[in-house]
């Protein structure tokens, strides 16, 4: 059971800054962290490996500093880590990112399962997972809340829906994106942290990847362009109601009736 987990480094702050010219996120000097749902994806991969054997490879695309999230995954227990880092990838939207990640996965080799976080906290597009699946032409199930089991080359999962969940069976290889309810990620052990410290993630550039067309990566390969960023309107000042519970209830009732 060889599993690839796609993970992303995101700013660990709500005070984000954008470059006025390009509309791109300013990453320099910002604290960073692993995207929370990606941690759940790593955890699920480790649990599947514990049951079924095989290897877990963490994959990220990002600037040099993104190596930190790979080390985080290794500290949790990932066997291998692959970092695609190349200036040519700057400005990639979800279309260009999924194109490239699919090729990086092709480079990793025989893969049975690909796991991604259901969405990132920063962009929250939820597009890269299903985009990678389509680039690899493998089945995809998004927003998985539980993996029921794997047998005979098929995986059975629960897909979270608005009013409950669907049970879906899917042949491997497949790509799943996961929601938070799927597990509680482990805390890295001291041994894991020591291993991560020494671990050298495999660094790849675009030149190392098969079948990459320059016009399909980075800003050139992106179909979306940010033309403006702005702050949301502030909510109007609220009204504080105080007093005994019955009085507060009466006041609120009268306000809402209007």
């Amino acid at each position: 059971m060889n599993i690839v987990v796609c993970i992303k480094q995101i700013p660990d702050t709500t005070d984000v800054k954008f470059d006025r010219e390009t509309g791109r996120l300013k990453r320099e000097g910002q604290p960073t962290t692993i995207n929370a749902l990606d941690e759940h994806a790593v955890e699920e991969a480790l649990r599947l490996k514990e049951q079924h054997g095989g290897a877990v490879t963490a994959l990220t695309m990002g600037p040099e500093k993104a190596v930190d999230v790979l080390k985080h995954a290794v500290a949790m227990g990932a066997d291998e880590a692959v970092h695609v880092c190349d200036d040519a990838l700057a400005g990639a939207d979800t279309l260009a990112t999924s194109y490239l990640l699919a090729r990086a996965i092709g480079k990793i080799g025989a893969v049975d399962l690909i796991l991604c976080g259901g969405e990132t906290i920063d962009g929250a597009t939820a597009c890269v997972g299903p985009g990678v699946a389509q680039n690899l032409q493998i089945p995809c199930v998004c927003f998985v809340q539980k993996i029921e089991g794997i047998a005979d080359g098929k995986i059975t999962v629960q897909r979270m829906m608005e009013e409950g969940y669907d049970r879906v069976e899917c042949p491997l290889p497949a790509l799943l994106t996961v929601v938070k309810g799927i597990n509680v990620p482990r805390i890295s052990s001291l041994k894991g942290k020591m291993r991560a410290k020494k671990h050298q993630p495999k660094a790849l550039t675009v030149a190392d990847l098969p079948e990459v067309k320059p016009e399909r990566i980075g800003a050139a390969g992106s179909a979306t362009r940010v033309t403006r960023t702005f702050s949301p309107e502030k909510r109007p000042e609220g009204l504080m109601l105080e007093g005994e519970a019955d009085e507060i209830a009466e006041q609120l009732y009268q306000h809402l009736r209007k």
Partner: protein
Amino acid sequence: MELMKDPEVLNPDECRGVCIFAEQRRGALSSAAMEMAGAGRRLADALGEDLHAALLGHGVGDLAEELRHYGIDKIHVVDDPVLADFLDEPYSAALCRVVRDVKPSILLGAATNIGRSLLPNVAVRLGAGLTAGCTGLAIDDATRSLVATRPAFGGTIFADVVMENRRPQIATVRRRVMAPAERRDAPSGEIVRHDLPPCAASARAKFLESVDELAGAVDLTAADVIVSGGRGIGGPEAFEMIRELADALGGGVGASRAAVDAGWIAYSHQVGQTGKQVRPKVYVACGISGAIQHLVGMRASDTIIAINRDPEAPIFRVATYGLVGDVHKIVPALAKRFREGG
């Protein structure tokens, strides 16, 4: 695994009109379909072009007839047993077939779990741009292209995004942002049937069953009213009073991450960054301090009522009405008062 070949992209000069994905599930149209019909009509009118809808499913003839009451010019139906329930592969293949036949300039779908699974796949198949989770859509007068507005970083910042060089320009739209199309008594619009493309005929994934977790549970992303409980309510038994207030107001039950992580209520109720993003007319936050991770999931609500013992709690900064006091007294008092009415 075999890498997909470069997609055959649509020629922008040949693309006209707006197409919506009319979501249906288990034989019923989603209210999201009407929201898309409303948004799509406004964009189509701004362009002076037609509004199309794509309806995928099995035995959906009645739903197609029903869509004729929502001001759509052409309803494109792909009806096949393989489309009976949502699966990514046959649905995206079928939707691509409709898009390649119709050649719309804009393709819209709601940012539901289905829409957020389906449209990214379709975008890759078409080599088109997708702007996800939009809260605003407009046509640029000069270029006649779509300007899609979306929040990022949990709504701390908004961005205008264009996809001017590719067609269709795809957007997924958040629930409850767009005014839905009104139902008209007289049907209009033409129903066009499309064949299922051969590549969609055999889905690799298999739909087993659909499970409602709570009978009569309210879909929080579509709810008018949500009453949520947090750590401050004290324990799992306190969700009983939260449920009672939700019932009195005709709404659903939400929860903060702290309450979910403590095991007081199921994850499906969680509102916030790693849970559901909601925008009801009325959101009642009970015993929720208002960590940023919670605020990003609910601050787009029209009216926010916060109940907390601590007058300095951050939740009061986004509250329309701040109720300071004991949540165990105020919540039952509210339920009683709203049940009495008058």
